[in-house]
């Protein structure tokens, strides 16, 4: 384990391809039982970053430590702590699921009964036990994706790296994949998850790094990122009664930055609505009857737009 319980520590990663700087000074840490999301559009430098993290790509500058051990293209043993799930479905279609698992298991030094036991466990985890001896070319896309993830778990990794594992996946399989990532995190792994889907980052990640054009623009929890760029929650109240008084008392609250009357009630701009909503409802309720409340929290899409001037899917 690295310092302060960190499983992964990256510092100042830089990679240049010719004249193009693909990754420029990226650094972040991931602790055990933490999912860290690298959120950015296609071509932002996510895959290049994780290639350096996994020791697949030589870096020009910077350092990667996994459990305190340096990882690079020559660090053979340090890579044993990493589980890697590439963006592509990286399995052999002419081998069965069991043969795929056995092959990669052997490369991680497993053998004999240990190997067979682990293969069985993984087949259970990815729910492919009943299809274990079929060639994977006959599998559906979702089944292949599950096996793709299972292969990354063979070595009981301390750090699980998933590179956009839901690209091209149907909604049902996507949900299953996201649920499994949450399970892995809960089991104690540190998870590095790259995506350009804002919803996935918001659901899965304890902390998010926003990356664009090779630079880490900002990182933190979702709330930290939102507050970092000055975004506020929006609270819409449907109400009847003395609306003038309701607007006045709501606007007088310290947490409320702006209060305006709308056709069916009032709209408030609030810092941390979840925290202050009870007080707001108490004061407004003295003058009006509130029939509905809708809280809109600023999302990472808005943060990304604020930081880069472009949408995530650009």
């Amino acid at each position, binding site marked *: 384990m690295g310092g302060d319980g960190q499983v992964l520590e990256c510092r100042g990663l830089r990679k240049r391809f010719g004249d193009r700087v693909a990754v420029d000074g990226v650094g972040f840490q991931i602790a055990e039982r933490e999912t860290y999301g690298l959120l950015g559009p296609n071509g932002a430098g996510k895959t290049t970053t994780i290639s350096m993290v996994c020791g697949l790509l030589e870096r020009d500058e910077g350092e990667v430590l996994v459990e305190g051990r340096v990882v690079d293209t020559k660090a053979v043993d340090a890579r044993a702590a990493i589980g890697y799930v*590439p963006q592509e479905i990286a399995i052999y279609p002419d081998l069965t699921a069991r043969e795929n698992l056995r092959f990669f298991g*052997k490369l991680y030094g497993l053998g004999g009964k240990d190997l067979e036991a682990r293969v069985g466990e993984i087949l259970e985890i990815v729910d492919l036990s009943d299809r274990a001896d079929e060639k994977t070319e006959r599998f559906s896309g979702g089944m292949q994706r599950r096996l793709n993830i299972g292969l990354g778990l063979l070595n009981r990794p301390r750090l699980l790296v998933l590179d956009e594992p839901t690209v091209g996946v149907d909604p049902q399989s996507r949900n299953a994949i996201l649920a499994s990532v949450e399970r892995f995190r809960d089991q104690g792994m540190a998870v590095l998850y790259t995506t350009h889907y804002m919803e996935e980052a918001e659901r899965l990640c304890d902390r998010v790094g926003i990356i664009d054009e090779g630079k880490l623009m900002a990182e933190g929890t979702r709330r930290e990122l939102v507050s970092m760029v000055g975004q506020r929650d929006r609270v819409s109240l449907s109400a009847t009664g003395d609306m003038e008084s309701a607007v006045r008392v709501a606007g007088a609250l310290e947490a409320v930055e702006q209060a305006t009357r709308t056709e069916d009630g009032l709209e408030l701009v609030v810092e941390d609505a979840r925290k202050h909503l009870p007080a707001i409802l108490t004061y407004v309720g003295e003058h009006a009857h509130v029939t509905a409340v809708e809280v809109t929290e600023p999302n990472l899409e808005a943060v990304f737009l604020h930081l880069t001037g472009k949408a995530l899917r650009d």
Partner: protein
Amino acid sequence: MRAAITIAAKDLRQRIRDRSVFVIAFLVPFGLTLIFSLTLKNASGDSKYTATYALVDQDGGQVAEAFTGILTNLDFVTLKPTESVAEASNLTEDGKVDAAFVIPAGFSTTVAAGRGGELRVLTNPNASIGGIVARSLAQSFASDIDGIQVSVATVLGEHSGTPPDAAALQALVERARQTPPTAVLDQNTAESKLFSSTTFYAAGMAVFFVFFTVEFGVRSLLAERETGTLARLLVAPLRPAWVIVGKAAASFVVGLISMTALVVASHFLLGAKWGNTLGVALLVVSGVLAAMGVTALVATLARTSAQASSYASAVAVVGGMLGGTFFPVSQGPAILANLSLITPQAWLMRGFQELAGGASFGEVLPAVGATLLFGVVLGGIALARADRVTSR
């Protein structure tokens, strides 16, 4: 090493499941060998070898007459008396004769005087077999003349400073006339140096197709890069070199099995005569390594597995044609025969031809060495460029 074996075993399992490897590695080359050998036998009707030689006798002496007599007595030789060297040269060059013998003026006199003589053989690069037989006949005769010279020199030595005694000269000629058994012996040797059509095509197809058979190894490295499994392999705790070693080992095994199966099957089923077993084994191993070197280097120039496959096929076809796997390249222009030596296929064919002709293990070592050189040099360059394939 364990990782390399695991990767090689996985690749072999995939090859076995992909039945096309049996087609490329064995069925097609064996089938073509069968078709070619049957077709050629039927076309020629009689497989007995014949040769036509021009003879320029500028000497007209008794020794020359003796040599001519030897040639005339050989039933597979047709002699075409020719007036001048230029004419003989033209006939040879035009392919109207297989080779030409030139007996220079004064040949009989200088031989009889113990000063030796030069018996010239003009060969046609388009008819290497005829050239080999002609050289063999001339060398056989020359070696007997040497022996006779010693005898004559001894006889003549007793009469030092005097012209050769007519009786002694007559004895010399008579002994020269008695050389046919030696010449016939050499004729047999020369004939046995020829590939039978079956052996030629078995060797040709084995050499031609081994370049396709081993190509899958390097192509699979590119294919694994495309599908992402290479990245997965490289994240595993193993040295990247083991991935390459594993794939090379699988290619080597498939290539070796392919060539060996063809050698054995063509010998037992088609009657091909390969010659010295150890020499054949060495050539087979060096051939597989050369094929691996060539295809590996070609693959490092490609961006995709499909591109690598196309490049490797083009190189294999051109190299196979130029290297004489479908027809004796020596039957083309001389420049082609020389050019063919830039291909490992030509060296392999040369080696197999020598072995089929009765060459010993030691005699085939130059061909083995040249073939291995291709494997080592080209494979080494490919290895140095391997990071272009393994890096993302």
